């Protein structure tokens, strides 16, 4: 396997994007990625598109997007790994270049989630586990899947509803500094604790919003980095992936995601670094409990000590390991298939020292960053380590 660099990134504004359809939204990420890298569609022989789909009208999102963005003719694949579809697309594009099969590839993540109403979105995402055994008779929703983990974590480790609220407060704070974020306002612990329950113990501010968005990443070989005269390449240092059972009842426990722990271990081994070397991370905080479990599954702290990390402010800028200082899924928004690429977008900006607001830029010495992207409730997980 050869070295692969990120040479261009783009991200649409995340939010309620009723002004654009799927392909128009993807264009808002693809064009800036081209401009960032200084390349055109003619330079891209392979395109991967991450999108979970089912809530928008198109059945072949990759084909529609490629045509609209001038990428027709490139090798094309649609990657699905639920909420990690963007990372699946990124990993597939990375492997294509790393293997030497192509010298340049592009990963696009896009999701248009607001063309159906909220009960329909809850229905479709609720079915994303094992429909037959867990949804058909019991109507489980995605907040409920993570609430089952929150209840177990609270019972075993004493994590509290206040701890969950602190994750939301932190992520809203940074989203308010991020121009692409869905939410642009801060909240308080009181706001979070007094919000209506969605699936106890998770309340409104414990849950990511329903968001439209797109993100695009261009990857290239070392030779192409030189040929395109890329000033600040960001290298893929390591990548790891794993999966978990469809039925939640076939898991070992509900206080962490085994697939995430395995994916992190594999990524660290691939990169030859450990959790203590990472200086900035994006973690999959679709629900506040998910960020606390992510700290533990990645190894930023010991199992059961995730709440301590947030209480001590260790995951803020200036702390031991800043996490989700782009606002996270919680407040930047979680357009399912776009999220994985958007994590890479954010970390590339951080590693280049280009985070939009100075308060959001993490000071770096080793220039090592990590993206942790979970699909479903630990059904899939991708961990990617980047190095400048």
């Amino acid at each position, binding site marked *: 396997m050869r070295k692969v660099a990120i040479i261009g990134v783009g991200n649409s504004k995340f939010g309620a994007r009723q002004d654009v359809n799927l392909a128009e939204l993807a264009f808002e990420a693809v064009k800036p990625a081209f401009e960032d890298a200084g390349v055109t569609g003619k330079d891209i022989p392979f395109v991967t598109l991450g999108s979970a789909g089912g809530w928008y009208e198109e059945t072949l999102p990759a084909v529609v997007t490629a045509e609209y963005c001038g990428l027709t003719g490139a090798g094309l694949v649609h990657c699905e790994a639920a909420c990690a579809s963007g990372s699946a697309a990124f990993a597939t594009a990375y492997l294509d270049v790393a293997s030497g099969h192509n010298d340049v590839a592009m990963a696009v993540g896009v999701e248009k989630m607001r063309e159906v109403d*909220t009960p*329909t979105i809850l229905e479709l995402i609720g079915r994303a586990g094992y429909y*037959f055994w867990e949804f058909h008779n*019991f109507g489980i929703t995605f907040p409920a899947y993570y609430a089952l983990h929150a209840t*177990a974590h609270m*019972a075993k480790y004493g994590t509290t509803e206040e701890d969950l609220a602190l994750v939301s407060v932190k992520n809203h704070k940074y989203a308010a500094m991020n121009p692409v974020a869905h939410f642009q306002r801060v909240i308080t612990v009181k706001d979070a604790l007094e919000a209506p329950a969605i*699936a106890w113990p998770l309340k409104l501010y414990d849950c990511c919003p329903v968001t439209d968005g797109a993100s695009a990443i261009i990857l290239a070989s070392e030779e192409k980095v030189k040929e395109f005269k890329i000033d600040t390449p960001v290298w893929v240092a390591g990548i790891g992936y794993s999966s978990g059972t469809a039925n939640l*009842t076939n898991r070992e426990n*509900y206080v962490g995601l085994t697939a995430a722990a395995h994916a992190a271990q594999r990524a660290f081994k691939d990169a030859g670094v450990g959790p203590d070397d990472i200086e900035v991370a994006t973690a999959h905080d679709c629900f506040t409990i998910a960020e606390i479990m992510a700290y533990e599954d990645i190894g930023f702290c010991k199992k059961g000590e995730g709440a301590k990390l947030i209480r001590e402010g260790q995951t803020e800028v200036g702390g031991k390991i800043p996490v989700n200082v782009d606002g996270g899924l919680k407040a930047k928004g979680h357009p399912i298939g776009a999220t994985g690429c958007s994590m890479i977008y954010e970390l590339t900006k951080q590693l280049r020292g280009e985070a939009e607001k100075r308060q959001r830029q993490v000071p770096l010495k080793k220039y090592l960053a990590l993206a942790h992207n979970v699909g479903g409730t630990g059904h899939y997980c991708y961990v990617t380590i980047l190095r400048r």
Partner: protein
Amino acid sequence: MAAALPTLKSRPLSLTYEIPISKTKKFWNEIKEGKIYTTKCKKCGRLFFPPVADCPTCLSSDIEWVELSNEAEIETFTHVSVLPATFQKYEPYTIAIGRLREGVRVLAWLKDVKLEDTKVGMKVKLVPKVSSEGMLTYEFLPI
């Protein structure tokens, strides 16, 4: 709030899937008899829930049906207040995962216990049920 932007409505489509149950028919039939059955691999001895016809551990399809006890302990739970589209007519419900005496886990509704009285570790019973709409299901009830 800005005025709604122009959109075009797609053609509506209603989807119903016909899900094969030939290989788990006994499970559904026994619910009508008031019993919960599951499968066990005759080759490696693994007990499953939900029941499967093929063992993912040893890939044997030589399985037997066994009746489960109804004794369960709650491992975790949630109370769902915001409901998905096809559950809109229901009252908010509690979903629990219970570990049966035999070691397998079951996800089902927990009925007849207030949320504030529901605790991890509480003992409950697993009861098969034919719902008022004729759906074959099962639920946890207090002892």
